[in-house]
């Protein structure tokens, strides 16, 4: 496979996943904002969403930190490289630059998403019916992954697509958990009360994991368990552990396919081991935020190592 194609596939799936995760972040902000303001710590929900999105630096410092402005920035702003619109624009441009490497179904999923998103009516939907807009974005991600899953050859291209998805997803799950950190600075008196629990379940909801959580843990929304579910539980589809497992598997497939191993294989296994061998008490005692920050750093390095191993430069 051409290195440029691998690069395009990897980033194509990262952009789709990122668009979806931007939507999930906003879903959290939206739900948390429904709670009484006094209970939400010393920052506003939308400010937290902005911080966790990683795009705060590009936000106009004079603009108000309200739903309408922040959502508009995260969805439609052309100067925000991670806005949902830009994610779909880049994803489609990547797809167009390698039409031969993706299937017609994948192309249609991306192309239709962008065509719809460019319509003026989408601005109104996002402004007036944010939850509906968020659902629409999540659906586009699902359509694209479904088209990918059911139509693409299981060759090296598939591995690069999946690597992109899980690198991006684990980064985003870490960000979702961090919103909680930003909203509620650890005030021990608040931990475990009604608002705190509500906020933790919001994290689950945004990760589409509320029902799954019930099945696994039966009851009790303790922060401990929710964090466990999204970080260490390998059965949870958005958990860091699951993403790390998928990444090592796809790297393993590439090693078999190409008959060659690189240092990236070792790095991926290290991250996976870290997640399978940690426990939540340890993580909470060193600090959840510190743990997540460290993880995001390792994840970034891993992404660069994948690009180096397969001869494509990062974007």
């Amino acid at each position, binding site marked *: *496979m*051409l*290195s*440029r*194609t*691998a690069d395009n596939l990897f980033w194509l799936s990262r952009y789709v996943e990122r668009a979806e995760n931007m939507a999930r972040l906003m879903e959290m902000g939206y739900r948390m904002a429904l709670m009484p303001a006094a209970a939400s710590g010393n920052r506003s929900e939308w400010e937290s969403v902005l911080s966790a999105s990683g795009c705060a630096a590009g936000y106009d410092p004079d603009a108000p930190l309200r739903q309408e402005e922040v959502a508009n920035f995260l969805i439609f702003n052309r100067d925000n490289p991670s806005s949902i619109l830009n994610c779909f624009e880049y994803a489609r*441009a990547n797809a*167009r*630059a*390698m*039409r*031969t490497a993706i299937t*017609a179904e994948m*192309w*249609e999923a991306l*192309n*239709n998403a962008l*065509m719809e998103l460019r319509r003026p009516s989408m601005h109104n939907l996002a402004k007036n019916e944010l939850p509906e807009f968020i659902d629409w974005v999540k659906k586009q991600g699902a359509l694209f992954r479904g088209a990918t899953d059911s139509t693409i050859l299981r060759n*090296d291209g598939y591995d*690069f697509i999946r690597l992109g998805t899980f690198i991006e997803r684990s980064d985003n799950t870490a960000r979702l958990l961090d919103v909680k950190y930003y909203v509620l600075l650890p005030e021990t008196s608040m931990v475990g009360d009604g608002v705190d629990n509500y906020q933790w379940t919001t994290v689950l909801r945004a990760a589409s994991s509320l029902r799954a959580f019930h099945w696994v843990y039966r009851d009790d929304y303790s922060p401990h368990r929710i964090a466990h579910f999204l970080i260490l539980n390998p059965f949870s589809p958005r958990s860091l552990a699951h993403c790390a497992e998928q990444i090592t598997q796809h790297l393993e497939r*590439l090693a078999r396919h*190409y008959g*060659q191993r690189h240092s990236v294989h070792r790095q991926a296994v290290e991250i996976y081991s870290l997640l399978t061998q940690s426990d939540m008490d340890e993580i909470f005692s060193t600090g959840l935020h510190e743990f997540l920050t460290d993880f995001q750093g390792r994840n970034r390095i891993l992404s660069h190592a994948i690009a180096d191993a*397969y*001869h*494509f430069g990062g974007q």
Partner: protein
Amino acid sequence: MFNEMRMGDQIREPYRALVDWMEANGPEVLEQKRLEAETLFRKIGITFAVYGEGGDPERLIPFDLIPRIFTSQEWRKLDRGVKQRARALNAFLYDVYHNAEIIKAGIVPADLVFRNEAFEPAVIGIDPPRNVYSHIVGVDIVRTGPEEFYVLEDNCRTPSGVSYMLENREIMMRMFPDLFKNLRIEPVESYPDMLLKTLKSIAPRKCDREPNIVVLTPGAMNSAYYEHSFLADQMGVELVEGQDLFVHEDRVYMRTTRGPARVDVIYRRIDDAYIDPLCFKSDSVLGIPGLMNVYRSGGVAICSAPGAGVADDKAVYTYVPDMIRFYLGQEPILNNVPTWKCGKPDDLKYVLEHLGELVVKEVHGSGGYGMLVGPASTKEEQAAYAKRIEADPGDFIAQPTLSLSACPTFVESGIAPRHVDFRPFCLVGDNVRLTPGGLTRVAMREGSLVVNSSQGGGVKDTWIMSD
């Protein structure tokens, strides 16, 4: 004007079944099918961008639902005529880069070839595999009567449009399954296979294995990018850009996730001037430095071969019938349009006196840019154009305004005749192959003779009826 569907009150033979179908179904059904077809095209992303016009870079080329239909008898003549031309053009190309017999024989003037911008001194004496230079010849043909076909021009470099031939057929088969079931229409689907066979057959001298073939595109911003990716996909070969290829020692490689992989045959869709900055345009970022050295030493085959453009120059065109006689010893099956060469004083005088009746073209122009259609122009436009001709007469040729045939076409006011031309795609490698079909282009505006997609022309599916 020859209407291909109607002769007086009579429906012409090849169109009878179609007319029956249209009468049985009525205009609403056709309108609905038209909308469906447009949605399909937009969805699969078949677009044709026009350089320098701004606006939507992925504009949709208008597709007309009503097919253009030829009888098998009409096709036989076109088939023989096009193949004959493709052979003669390749013989000419080999000749001008070797002994130049046709020039020594006094048939084609030396200046016309050697001082031509498309003539590449860099490839003199090189023997391309099978001595073929133009592997895909697109011959533009117009019709003026039941038996009257004329060749308007030859495209020996990288004629585009074949993806439309294939996709138009796909769409038509989806839209009108019953017509395809009941009529016997020659299939066109085998084109990508035939192209792949042709490309395999021109493996370079040093290639000692199944050749690795790639399609080289300038990139996603190119107006024909869709076609490049479509053909690579249909053939199952990599679509590469210049940045993906590099030269190491005497071979060409592409950058892959496993490291470098050798490339043997390059079907390039970029111009000569851009393929190798060391040999041609030094500021090109599209090309591969050192490619021409590899080509020269038999390490890679390039399709079309560098230098092939000298055969599709509009001034050289006028000599194609002579080439057919000289190289093949045959009479041309398809005629040229009578042409005045403004470089000749007598012709120049005639052209300037008859600008209002003629179509004048730049010799090196393409895509319908910079031409004057006499009958459709104003006096001022004619006067301005005359100045351009006088400044450099050798750069212009003129042809009579042919009364192009028309085919029924879907337009805003309903179904009306519009002028059409036709481009079949002839493949030259170990064999000369021609798919029964081609691209019919249609001028969507009433009375217009300009069918180029860059000038707002549309396309139709072309049906060849089998016996």
